């Protein structure tokens, strides 16, 4: 077999489309099989008849252009380029066509996949934010950050802190007597207001149990005015309830106890975990709360000094508290001057 024959066969069998056109006349001189398959209306011996955005004679000076060809049901994306050549004194245009469908298909697949992954990433981000929001409801941010970083939270002693414990008078009776939906929705509204008050005064709400609301100052970051901050929050809560009761049918009356001391804070539980605090200050606040009359705030006598400047403190009285024995306690209220302003 002659080299020429081999070349001719090769040109016929390659997957690149080749077509030779006479430059002067525009007549197709030769084309390989691949070209013929892609462009059925291109016939050897006839004038070039392929619809292109550019004239054939312009093609050699241009970048390759993209054309579509339909073979059976499949629309192919082809890249067409041309260059000039000369053969035995005849000027020719050699048209070369590559099938770039696979390339385009792969690009489309990557786009499609990237789109899916982007969407999934956004969903995960949203979920993460949601989880973070939920966790920040049950633990302070610094504890949450420790939890995220290390996967656990080491119990930590906080001292001194002040614990505020609030409980409603006759809640059980109210819940049983009225529509529980209304009662709970009102409780939710009140606790939300308490959350705002707490935040304003640097109190960290630790938890609510039924109608009991517990917040701590001086945790997780130490604060020298923890006692005053807790007392401020407490009088605001009472004031809020007083105002609310003037315009609402249900009269919500609370008792509050405030105690200074130490607590240990930790995440409790494995699957249903909550951040909680334990310690003498918590127990004391609970006992003091029980000593309050409705709409009263009870504090330990030991807190008098730190609160005297800003609040009215009643003379001390001695009571026996479970777990603490004889204890001096006092009633805390707003200074009259404050009350008048309010």
């Amino acid at each position, binding site marked *: 077999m002659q080299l020429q024959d081999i070349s001719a066969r090769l040109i016929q069998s390659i997957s690149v489309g080749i077509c030779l056109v006479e430059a002067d006349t525009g007549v197709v001189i030769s084309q390989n099989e691949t070209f013929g398959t892609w462009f059925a209306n291109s016939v050897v011996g006839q004038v070039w008849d392929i619809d292109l955005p550019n004239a054939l004679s312009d093609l050699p000076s241009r970048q390759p252009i993209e054309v579509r060809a339909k073979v059976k*049901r499949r629309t192919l994306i082809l890249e067409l380029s041309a260059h000039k050549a000369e053969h035995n004194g005849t000027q020719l245009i050699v048209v070369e066509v590559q099938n770039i469908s696979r390339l385009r298909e792969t690009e489309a697949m990557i786009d499609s996949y990237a789109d899916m992954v982007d969407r999934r990433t956004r969903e995960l981000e949203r979920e993460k934010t949601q989880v973070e929001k939920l966790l920040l409801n049950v633990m302070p941010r610094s504890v949450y950050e420790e939890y995220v970083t290390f996967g656990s939270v080491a119990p930590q002693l906080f001292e001194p802190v002040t614990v505020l414990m609030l409980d409603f008078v006759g809640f059980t009776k109210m819940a049983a007597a009225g529509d529980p939906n209304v009662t709970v929705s009102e409780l939710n509204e009140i606790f939300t207001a308490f959350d705002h008050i707490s935040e304003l005064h640097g109190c960290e709400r630790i938890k609510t149990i039924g109608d009991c609301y517990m917040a701590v100052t001086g945790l997780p970051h130490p604060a020298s005015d923890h006692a005053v901050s807790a007392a401020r929050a407490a009088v605001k809560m009472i004031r809020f309830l007083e105002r609310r009761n003037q315009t609402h049918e249900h009269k919500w009356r609370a008792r509050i106890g405030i105690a200074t001391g130490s607590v240990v804070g930790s995440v409790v539980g494995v699957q249903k975990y909550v951040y909680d605090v334990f310690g003498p200050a918590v127990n004391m606040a609970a006992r003091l709360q029980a000593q309050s009359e409705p709409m009263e705030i009870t504090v330990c006598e030991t807190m008098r000094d730190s609160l005297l400047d800003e609040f009215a403190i009643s003379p001390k009285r001695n009571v026996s508290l479970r777990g603490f024995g004889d204890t001096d306690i006092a009633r805390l209220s707003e200074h009259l001057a404050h009350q008048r302003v309010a």
Partner: protein
Amino acid sequence: MLAHMETTGSIPLFDKYGGLRGLRSVIIDFYDRVLDSDVVGHFFEDVDIAKLIDHQTKFFAAILGGPAEFADQRLANAHRHLDVSHIHFDEVTRILKDTLADAGFVQNDLNLTLSAVEARRSLIVR
């Protein structure tokens, strides 16, 4: 209810068979076979390549537990205007089975995938 399939182990089949990297040629192969089929090829004729490939990629990701999920309602809406018959559905299932078998899917994974597709028959066939 999401049209994404349960898997045998803890990892989805999409990942087991190499993610997009591993399944790229399988997806293209499936697309070729579907287009060549005289029974269902016409559904895909004259559809823009990018759109068609997008469809096939998401289809694979969805049936193999990849990062795509289609709500049943969305599947039903997408096929409503196509007049898909049981013959068409059977043909696509057959092509999928052949493609996955040729790609080296083990029998159990193949069965799981096909039954996930089968479970959506009523949403797609009119």
